[in-house]
């Protein structure tokens, strides 16, 4: 069930999500997962590979309605920017068209120049996706998610396949977008350092079938989190969630 409330809070409760496999047999991906993200919060989902993170995102985006549970979106008619785990660009449209075509009609005319420049895609605007490197494709996918000026931003591992320099720049870009009042962000990441740098709250997930095994609020202001602080929190988390977060 999928409802858009006026609460402003994103509420996700998935009692059960089962897949039926083609070869017969069922796979329970999610069982008793329950969390909520207040409006304007930046939440990171952290969990082992194959636990059910992408499945959860698909459900809360309304792409999969075959589950038992209940989802409340932050606001009715909220605009959503999504970065899937793979780039998912339209191969037959140029980079620029890939971004522009997803804009709400009223914003189709927007100047995308600054955004492309920030993502280092200026010279790739007229190229087709298959002429890009994977890292570039992923940046286009991020551009597409940010260009809609979303109320809800859903990112599935946005910063993999990028070098340190670029990743750092994009982290700042995402943080800036998230800083706009009221944008709720839900980001999946395997990089705990990244999560500790950017998030207001961490949601730690169990292996499949997944559920929440811990939630951590990070009260220190984003942008004021020195490496030592991050390392100490990380060490603390590794101690408390030994199966989920590793020592180094």
């Amino acid at each position, binding site marked *: 069930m999928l409802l858009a409330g006026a609460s402003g809070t994103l509420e996700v409760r998935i009692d059960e999500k089962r897949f039926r496999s083609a070869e017969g047999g069922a796979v329970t991906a999610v069982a008793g997962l329950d969390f909520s993200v207040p409006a304007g919060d930046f939440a990171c989902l952290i969990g082992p590979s194959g636990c059910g993170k992408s499945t959860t995102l698909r459900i809360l985006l309304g792409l999969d309605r075959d589950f038992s549970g209940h989802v409340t979106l932050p606001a009715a008619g909220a605009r959503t920017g999504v970065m899937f785990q*793979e780039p998912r660009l339209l191969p037959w449209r140029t980079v620029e068209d890939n971004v522009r075509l997803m804009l709400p009609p009223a914003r189709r005319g927007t100047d995308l120049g600054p955004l492309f420049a920030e993502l280092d895609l200026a010279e790739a605007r007229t190229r*087709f*996706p298959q002429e890009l490197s994977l890292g570039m494709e992923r940046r286009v996918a991020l551009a597409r998610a940010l260009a809609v000026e979303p109320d809800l931003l859903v990112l599935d591992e946005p910063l993999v396949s990028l070098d340190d320099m670029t990743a750092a720049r994009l982290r700042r870009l995402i943080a800036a977008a998230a800083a706009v009042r009221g944008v709720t962000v839900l980001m999946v990441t395997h990089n705990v350092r990244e999560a500790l740098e950017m998030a207001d709250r961490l949601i730690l997930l169990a292996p499949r079938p997944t559920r929440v095994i811990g939630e951590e609020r990070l009260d220190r202001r984003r942008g004021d989190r020195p490496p030592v602080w991050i390392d100490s929190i990380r060490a603390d988390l590794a101690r408390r969630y030994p199966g989920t977060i590793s020592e180094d």
Partner: protein
Amino acid sequence: MAPDGAGRSRGALNRSGLRVLSLVVFLLVWEAIALLAGRATMPSPLEVGRFIVAETAAGELLRHLAYTLARVAAAFVIAMAIGTAIGIAMGRSQLIDLFGDSWLIVLLNTPALVITVLAYVWFGLNEAAAIGAVALNKIPNVAVTMREGTRALDPKLDEVAEVYRMSALDRLRHVVLPQLGSYLAASARSGLALIWKVVLLVELLGRSNGVGYAIHLHFQNFDVTAILGYSVAFATVMLVIEYALVQPVERHASRWRIRHA
């Protein structure tokens, strides 16, 4: 390793060179068959060429060709539009598919003769009935192909369109149709050919002009030269359309594809 600059123009040269070569070989093979088979059952390319010139001068060929092309074009447009719509609908909705499936197979396997005769009987011996009959013959073929294409659509791109709330029209234009491109190309090409086969029958059964009518007329006299003449004339028109229109459009539409060396 070859200097890059030369690549493109050499490619273009090779392209026309090969086409001309292919044509020459075609004519040679034909000539050889004509020599082997004897003039009566297989006229040589030259004789057919002479017939085409004479018949064009007599004004006959162009007239029949024009009628047939007009019918082919009308039926083609109708069949592609309706067939594509049906195919996409059946590919997308299991309900429509289950319901329409058996109708499609029945229509697919109803002889052109039956459809044509019934169309003429019900709607009269007129242009509308003729074109309608041709289109009806072709629609199930288009629908079947487009249904397969629709089933092969990438659900991941659909999800993108969904989360970004693309309008139905935008989805069709930017997400669905480009994926159906090769299916459209396949069914357009083999469709044009099928239509042309059916048009012949339709013209034979109830029209007073067109290539089908002309071919049948000459067939009565077993005039193989004339039959081949009309057949070649039509094929030539199709070749011109293919090279001047279809292929450039196709190349443009699929330029995003990475080509192998």
